[in-house]
């Protein structure tokens, strides 16, 4: 039997199919957990927020329309939940080293700290692309920005990270200098 697409499952879930809902959860729990986990640095809270995202999915299931891709729909919910969480929670607290940070390799710490130095708009685009593997169009949909903006933000974020991680200011051909996306 042909595996159902996310959208088909979502429509089935909208119609009251609990199995479809569980299948969607199984497909996306790691992705959503990973996404919020990277933003919060708190496994316990990331777990709760992941549940919150799927809770919101349940609550809003009747508002889902087939023209919206399910993945972007879900990530948009996650993005809003994260924004809400980060508003309530001081940024410093969210970005603080997690308890297991002392066990992390140096490279991981560097990456985490470098990402923390990016401003939100660059960090969002970068995480959605590099870790969540969303396409440019999907990122544009999630963040509600043009695809061209996604491309430029991603590029600037990469340049900034190059400097932060590799300690070298990258040379951009054809440009006399460039704006890095660091905060």
């Amino acid at each position, binding site marked *: 039997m042909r595996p159902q697409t996310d959208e088909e499952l979502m429509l089935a879930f909208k119609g009251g199919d*609990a199995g479809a*809902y*569980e299948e969607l*959860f199984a497909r996306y*729990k*790691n992705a*959503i*957990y*990973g996404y919020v*986990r*990277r933003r919060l640095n708190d*496994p316990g809270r990331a*777990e*709760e927020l*992941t*549940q*919150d995202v*799927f*809770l919101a999915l*349940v*609550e809003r299931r009747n508002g889902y329309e087939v023209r919206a891709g399910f993945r972007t729909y879900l990530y948009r919910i996650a993005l809003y939940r994260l924004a809400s969480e980060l508003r309530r929670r001081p940024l410093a607290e969210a970005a603080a080293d997690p308890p297991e940070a002392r066990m992390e*390799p140096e*490279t*991981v710490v*560097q*990456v*985490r700290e470098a*990402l923390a130095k990016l401003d939100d708009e660059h960090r969002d685009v*970068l995480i959605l*692309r*590099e*870790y969540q593997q969303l*396409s*440019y169009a999907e990122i544009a949909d999630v963040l509600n920005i043009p695809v061209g903006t996604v*491309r*430029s933000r*991603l*590029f600037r974020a*990469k340049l900034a*990270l*190059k400097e932060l*991680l*590799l300690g*070298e200011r*990258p*040379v*951009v*051909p*054809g*440009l006399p200098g*460039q704006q890095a996306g660091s905060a």
Partner: protein
Amino acid sequence: MNSKHPVEAEELQAYLDNELARARRLAIEQHVAACVDCRRLLDDLRAVSARLQAWQVEPAPPHLKPPAFEATAQRVRIRPRLTWRWVAAFGGAAAAVLLIVAVSIPDSLRSRHMTAPPPPPAEVGKKEDRRAPAATPASDMASGIARLRRAEKPAESKDEVGEMNRMAEYAAEAERGREGSLAVAKSAVAQQMIAQEVSLTLMVKDFDKGKRELLAAVEQAGGYIANAASAETPNQPRRADFVVRVPVPQLNAVLEAARGLGRVTYEQQAGEEVTAQYVDLQARLKNARATEQRLVHVLAERTGKVRDILEVEREIARVRQEIERMEAQRKHLENRVALATLSVALVEEFEAKLAPAPVGTGTQLKNALVEGIQNFVGMFVGLALFFARYGLHLLFWGGLGWLGGRAIWIRLRPRLWPAV
């Protein structure tokens, strides 16, 4: 993009991400093969992506289950985190309770000393439960409503302090229990609340004038007619029953006006004290509101599963329904206290009148003749209708009976009369 670099730098990242059309990909590949700078930038971008992949997070824990969307009896995580906010809230609650008790106890003692003894019961009337004050001063007659509004104000002002204080108040009250809040509410309601009811039966000479004047007195007093019924039967006195609601301060004026309409044949005044009922209602209402606030707070801070959230929402709906029911009861009680119920029966003094002249003999004969013809014609019409309706039945069953009887007769006749 310029003549030396026919590709935009951003396109290199899009190229790495496979986000370009095929023609553009080929153009970039050709350019990168020839351009050292662009190749170096491409390598840098790849290196950054590789470094980023060093940070991998663990997969979602196995115990992470999808929030179920069907309702169960499990509750959401109620236990809040013990933060300084909660500590402050509990501290604030304790202080608020001490303040209320300190303020309300002297008030209740003072009011007990100042309350005048109730006036003696009225002499008229067959039954008297409790006579309401006959001539209550207007200032005192601002009645339960105004007093109770004043009594409620402390609680409302506390509500305005904010969510934290409300929660703290609720927490403290929960510890004290319902009895505690009842005591606080009782002390706040220093005055008695009495719902007055008066019944009056009046014998009036001029029935219409009596009705008009009674209704005018009610209207002038700012009251209204809750119910009105009148009956008019030949050779019987006319009667009108009114149930009117008048503001308590105007009750005596309306009663005086009503008594002046005619002779009072019955009067009853009763006062039902609803203070305890009101106080109990207030206390329950306060507790229910605190519960609702707490549930709303729990919902706002929700971290549980869907079924838990649904359970909380259902509980909120139930508490809200309870609050609205109690609000309605409270308004009803306040209404009963603020407006006295006056039942007035107006009965006309009966004057016997001569009976109308009897019908003439000729008319009686004519009527009898018409009635006889109608009965006669009616008999034939009835017979015709009977045969039309049951004729076939009669023929069928009659024929059947006749044949059966004839057969029996033929068989029995030789035995009965052998000589014939």
